[in-house]
């Protein structure tokens, strides 16, 4: 996974997702009650989510859920949400949506299931493929590893919101021109990643594009077209002619 793919962390300490994402391997035991299986959602559900929460485990001592919540309430006046559905306001593609979702809902599920915005694709559901990339403010994030609640207060941009006034974003237009796709399932994530790169670096090299898309998996192998398209969108000509026939 490339560097900037994690959910924002610096000023947003409630990103639990990275702590538990590796735990899904153990969830398939049929003879165990669900509550004892460790799944990401189960973990988050058990833990509850604090809206402006602090780190879940504080210091060396492991608190129970109730103790953590009580401590927070006592010290910070922070309200605990969940596990039931609560209203959550998300700013998606410039429009505010209020959803009734459980606090454990990922941003990907909020978009796909609850808002019906299925342009964002879920491929691996644990980070390494970046198929579900959306922008939070201008930062590309894996929406499968970001809680919807962590997107509160951020501008979320999805593939559906990249066009302006019906015109394709330059990266989208360049993807069309260079045929930077085959099956198209990685395409939304690739486009989001490459558009984020150009916001940060308006004159990338091919190596910059490779670095930026290193976490985006394409199984059809359209990478050379993706590199060329992104460089063209930036106004930088690629090393090789892609339409070489």
């Amino acid at each position, binding site marked *: *996974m490339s560097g900037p793919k994690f959910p924002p962390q610096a000023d947003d300490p409630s990103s639990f997702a990275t702590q538990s994402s590796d735990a*899904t391997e153990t*969830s*398939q035991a*049929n*003879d165990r*009650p*669900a509550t004892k*299986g460790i799944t990401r*959602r189960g973990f988050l559900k058990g833990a509850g989510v604090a809206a402006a929460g602090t780190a879940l485990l504080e210091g060396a001592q492991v608190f129970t859920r109730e103790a953590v919540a009580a401590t927070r309430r006592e010290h910070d006046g922070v309200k605990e949400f969940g596990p039931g559905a609560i209203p959550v306001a998300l700013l998606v593609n410039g429009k505010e949506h209020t959803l009734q979702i459980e606090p*454990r809902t990922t941003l990907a599920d909020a978009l796909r*299931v609850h808002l*019906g*915005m*299925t*342009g*964002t*694709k*879920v*491929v*691996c559901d*644990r*980070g390494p*493929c970046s198929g579900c990339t959306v922008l939070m403010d201008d930062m590309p994030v894996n929406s499968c590893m970001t809680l919807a609640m962590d997107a509160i207060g951020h501008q979320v941009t*999805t*593939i*559906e919101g*990249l066009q302006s006034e019906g015109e394709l974003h330059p990266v*989208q237009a360049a*993807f*069309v021109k260079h*045929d930077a*796709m*085959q*099956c*198209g*399932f*990685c*395409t*939304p994530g690739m486009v989001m990643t490459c558009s984020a790169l150009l916001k940060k670096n308006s004159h990338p090299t091919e190596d910059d*594009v*490779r*670095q930026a*898309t*290193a976490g*985006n*998996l394409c*199984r*059809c*192998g*359209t*990478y*050379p*077209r*993706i590199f060329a398209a992104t460089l063209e969108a930036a106004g930088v000509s690629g*090393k090789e002619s*892609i*339409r*070489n*026939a």
Partner: protein
Amino acid sequence: MATTKSHPAADAANSTPKKTVKMPYGVPGYTLQDVERQVPTTEPPVLPVNADLEYIGKSPKRWDAHAKVSGSGRYTADIQLPGMLYAKFASSNVPHAKVVSIDTSAAEKVPGVKGVFVIENLLGGARLLNPSLEVSRYPIVRYAGQPIAAVAATQPHIAEEAALLVKVQYAPKPFVVDMEMARQSDAPPVFPGPANQGGSAGGGGGASDVPQTGNIHGPAVHKRGDAEQGFKDADFIVESKYTTQVQVHNALETHGVVADWKPDLLTVWASTQGTASVREELASFFKLPKSQVRVITEFMGGGFGAKFGPGNPGVVAAALSKQTGAPVRLMLDRKEEQLSVGNRPSSDQTLKIGAKKDGTLTAIQLISFGTAGCGTGAGCAGPATNLYQSASLHTEENDVFINAGPAAAFRAPGHPQGAFALEQTIDEMAEKLNMQPLEFRDKIDANPVRRVERQIIRESALWKSRNPVPNADRGPIKRGVGLSQSVWYRHIEMDSAAEVRVHRDGSVEVLSAVQDIGTGIKTVMAQILSEQFGVPPQQVSVKIGDTNYPVGPNSGGSVTTASLTPAVRDAAWQAAQKFLVSVAPALGTTPDDLVLTKGEVHSKSGHMQPIGFRRAAAKMDTSEVSAQARRVPDYDPKHYDTYGGVDVAEIEVDTEMGIIHVKRFFAVHDCGRPMNPSQVINQINGGLIQGTSYALYENRLLDPTYGLMVNANLDQYKIAGARDIPQLHVQLVESYIGQSSTDASGIGEAAGIISAAAAIGNAFYNATGVRIRSTPMTPAVVLETLSKAPQRSNA
């Protein structure tokens, strides 16, 4: 696609009236000439070469590119229907067991759960010839991850949690997940007796009329000529052992369906390479008339051979929909995808070839073992059989059963494995003969198109930069250049039909049940109508991926473009003739006097000035004319074509770290008439990348202690990414073969996946002077390979 699939018989075509036509044949700039063919009188005029066409052979933008870049394309995973339930499998967590009991009561009690289904008829994998050897109410568990039951609930996470509450009591059996161990006489048997597996519409499956001893299913023996005599005649013999790993398809969209069972119609959205195969098998499974099963695949996120038929997700979702009265979505998660719906089998090959001093190849012998898990289909003799057909041949292919998920057809089944061994052995022999790789192949491969491709390689800067002396670099990082050929076959699916409609407003549409799996058939269909009617491709309406339309081919074995495009062109031509009949009265002439070309209606007699297609359409005497055409047999079915290419890899081997950097490929390929060169090259790029990934990284790892896959995800199952892939330069060779009204062929299989690992292997030898005989070529394999080789001094 099985390489033995029969070619459409000439007999079927003999009864129809014929006309004689001259068609382009050969490679422009090299071997182009005219060839005479007898074709049905209903066939459209012969297409000239691409240079003389306006839309076909050009690269207009992908027809559905806008939908793909804007996120508006609806894949199966995106389908949401009112009241839809989400289903989740409960799967085995043991590799081999008899299921004693299944208790679903706890799962059923979870609020939101609407239905639970226990699988009693499992699809996939080999089946015992004598089922009475195993008496069990439920399917025997033969691999960890085998689906056992499924739960449907109102929300995905409720289904996930409830699936964990399905209690399964197992009576464990001894298991084996390592192929070498499985071959031992005292290994636990995966099946208690002989078992066979049929192939899918995409190929795969193995021989069924072969012996079975323990877990060894085979050998399937094939002979051509007298190989024993061939080795006696040989001056040189090269014999080596090669091994390759199991590769998992990992299409980005997982297998799955949305099934909506209504009393008079079962509608299924499926992520499939074959709407026809899904419809056929669901109708058969549920004993429904095919007319009451509709399958829709508007967009699909990759298949690579593993997505034919409904599979367990399809039948279980349909059963749950029937049970609950609600639409049901069942999409696999990534782990299930890697465990239960297919993979490329491993191989363990002993390959021996003989040649005379003059370079005549006298004999090829291949003994192979491979595991397709609890299925069959690990044969890999395709390249040995078909690349150099002048040699006598003896092949023995064996499947070895292990307790792992069954294999499925995977892009050029058996061929990357077979080419990895064969093409390195050919290079090894060339060195013994003191011949260069291209020179030796010129001697032993008579295929005229491959000959042109080798000539292009020979003249390329990359090949010229190759130092013919191996291990010439002095430093620890050594550069190498090597090549490999590939071969694939012309398979035609006769169940390929299309309808073309012309409307009075001048709009045109084409309909077929065929699915676009990412290869771009939608674009190609639009181009064919553009060529006929002069309407730009983006204005052609392409409606595919729905069995409500005329039957389309299952997209496996590179059949789609070769099979469907002639039907589309024939339908377009016939619709155009009906269109002329429809407008002739208003134009004051007879249909015979009219011809539609380059978007204009012309009068042969000069009766009128040319009139644009759209203006002419306004004069139609009916609001719509249409024609449906099915595939006519190849014009010269006795002439059997192969497709292929010659690929050159440039690599750097870090001999201290054991890392191979693949720097570049130069790939020269043919696939009949390229319909959309940009899309073809895109597929070849993808094949080279997938082949590089196979050569260096990908590997399914099974833990012998517990029988589980330890890297069933995308973080530990390493696939080549943006930083790993080489620079790619692809050159297409137009190759006219005089076989159909489009003369098109497919490219999916021949597109680099076959040759990449072999070319990298030959480049490794060129770099280091040492043969690498195992994939994936990880640093550990590279260092071990280098350390076992006799020390050679640097040049």
